[in-house]
């Protein structure tokens, strides 16, 4: 009986854990920083002008930008120069070739990797003859961190900073670090590891004891 109870509790937990590991191994992620995941408003950028997202603070280095953009109605979209800057100094460049159609988040590779840090700015300059249509949202924008043609707007552009895709499984250490941000004093990555052990080992072990004791000391009609 005791072994069957152990197997009945631990079996599903082990299966779920192994399945989660397998899924994480096959799940590739490239995200370093996300400004706004939401495409609620169209942000028109006229020929020869730029839209810039400021106050970007990536925690890791990156070599790609992915941003929400659309072709102009039925017409293909104009070319876009993407520059990454800090304190007015250009750190990396990339270009989105013209001719894209429809609304999508489109990736641009930068000419060099940019180190982590704070206070970065990513600018999108319209190099074509038609208006460039970027996407963004006022949701989540409580500061005017976007400029369009030099004018400050209460917006957040739909954009990501990216690096080489990595499996989610290879990022468990990163998960532990990220899950300890903005927590009270003593909380650090070590606590995330401890909680993982609690959920995967300690709680199932106590649960086995609970089931065993329920059938060990429960006289009928007690």
């Amino acid at each position: 009986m005791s072994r069957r109870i152990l197997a009945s509790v631990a079996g599903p937990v082990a299966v779920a854990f192994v399945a989660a590991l397998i899924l994480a191994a096959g799940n590739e992620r490239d995200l370093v920083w996300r400004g706004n995941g939401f495409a609620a408003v169209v942000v028109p950028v006229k020929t020869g002008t730029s839209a810039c997202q400021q106050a970007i603070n990536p925690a890791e280095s990156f070599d790609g930008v992915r941003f929400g953009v659309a072709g102009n109605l039925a017409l293909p979209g104009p070319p876009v120069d993407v520059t990454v800057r800090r304190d007015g100094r250009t750190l990396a460049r990339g270009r989105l070739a013209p001719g894209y159609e429809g609304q999508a988040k489109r990736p641009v590779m930068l000419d060099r990797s940019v180190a982590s840090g704070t206070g970065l700015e990513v600018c999108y300059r319209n190099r074509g003859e038609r208006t460039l249509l970027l996407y963004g949202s006022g949701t989540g924008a409580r500061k005017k961190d976007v400029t369009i043609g030099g004018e400050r707007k209460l917006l957040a552009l739909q954009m990501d900073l990216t690096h080489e895709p990595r499996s989610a499984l290879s990022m468990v250490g990163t998960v532990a670090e990220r899950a300890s941000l903005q927590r009270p004093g003593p909380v650090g990555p070590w606590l995330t590891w401890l909680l993982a052990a609690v959920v995967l080992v300690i709680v199932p072990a106590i649960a086995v004891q609970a089931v065993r004791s329920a059938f060990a000391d429960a006289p009928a009609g007690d």
Partner: protein
Amino acid sequence: MGLDLLRRVPRPLGLLLVCVTLLSVAWAIFTPPWQGPDETMHYGYVESVAQRHQRPGVERGSLFSTAQELSMRGSNADKLISISDGRPQWSETAANWFDGIPGTEVTDDGGGAEADGSVNLARNNPPTFYMLQVPVYATGAVLGGVNSRLYLMRLATILTLLATVACAWLLVGELVGRSRGIQLAAASSVGLLPMATHLGSTVSPDSLMYALWTLVLWLAVRSLKRGFERRVVSALVVATVGAVLTKGTSVALVPPVLGVLAFGVWQNPTFGERLGRIRESRGRVLAALFGATAVVVLMAVGGFARYSSQLQAQLEGSIVPQQMASYLWQFYLPRLPFMADLPTVQGIPVYDVWFKGLIGNFAWLQIQQPNWLYAVLGLASIALLVIGGRALWQEQPRSVVIFLAAVAAVLVVGLHLTDYQQGVKTGVGFMQGRYLLPLLGIGAAFVAAAWSRLPDRWVPVATGLLVGCLLALQVVSFSRAAGFWYV
């Protein structure tokens, strides 16, 4: 006395409570700041009570305090609320950029109504939960800043989930007798359910409401099965009032509990004699008394509506019968070709909103379980409802079955009225799966009834499997949350 009480806790329940505590602490710490459903509003309410001694939204001013606003900005909270593609802040420097900046710990400048109409959406909730959290808020302020307060308040909320589990254990004990195995299975279905541990470890009055609802269910069933003792009936009334003063939704408990009390009076052997005497001598007085009571109840509900946006919506709007019928059909069944396409109805809400929301729709609805898992658990739940429902019907007194059904029915009818009215008024649906969680105790009753039908030799392994599957669901839920928040 405390130690004596602890010694009286059955060992399986004690161990289950340890499991629930550990899982809830894990959820509380793993969840990024402000990612509990409506947590920004509930924290803001507590802060308004603690700092300004009033409900939020009474005076003009900022919606949130400077301290909360900066913490929310530092964690990317606004870019995550109900946005399925958002991510929290992953940069330590950015997340903590406001630490140490003079003036950023201002906590008494929130709780206002902003010029653009922004106001704390929780302001209509009764103040009970928020007042209970004030000492925790104050303790958190001693330990650190805004995030210390938030996380300490989350940890304090876990106590309400433990109370829910204990009450579910007692409820099942009344229904099927003191069978430790069945009680453990049923209480596990409450305490180890990922949505319960997630919501029970965020700052929200809902978890206290679940505890009080389950307490009411236990006390009412105990009275119906064992007879009406004065102290139990008093506790039942106090718990019901407490639930109503915690969240307006709990007004749904009032008619079934009044029914139980009326049943108790009717069952009392001396009542018939007394009623006869009163009829003879004071028939008109009695009629007037009943009439006055009805008026007072109606006035109380009307007056209380100011503490519940949901109740306000139910009382204010009108109903177009054909539209309501179409809405109800589409909620439970696929839309027929001649029916209007209602913007508030996505998929088949009884499954896509209610069931999925109960099995796992975390944070601000951005984190879901895999679709195949909902389907598998949906089939298992239907089997549980059929077997458990049949067993309850056959084995429990009619009064108990009617009471449990009435509690569920009044809540469901109220939710439909609100969803319908809000849909008509705003075009945006109101319904969420977690709104059914006050019925956790009734879910436990179904599990217990179904388990009571199992052959004795199967019960230990079935209980182990149920507990194991719930823990497996926890593992899946944590991995889904990690994938959304941190990868």
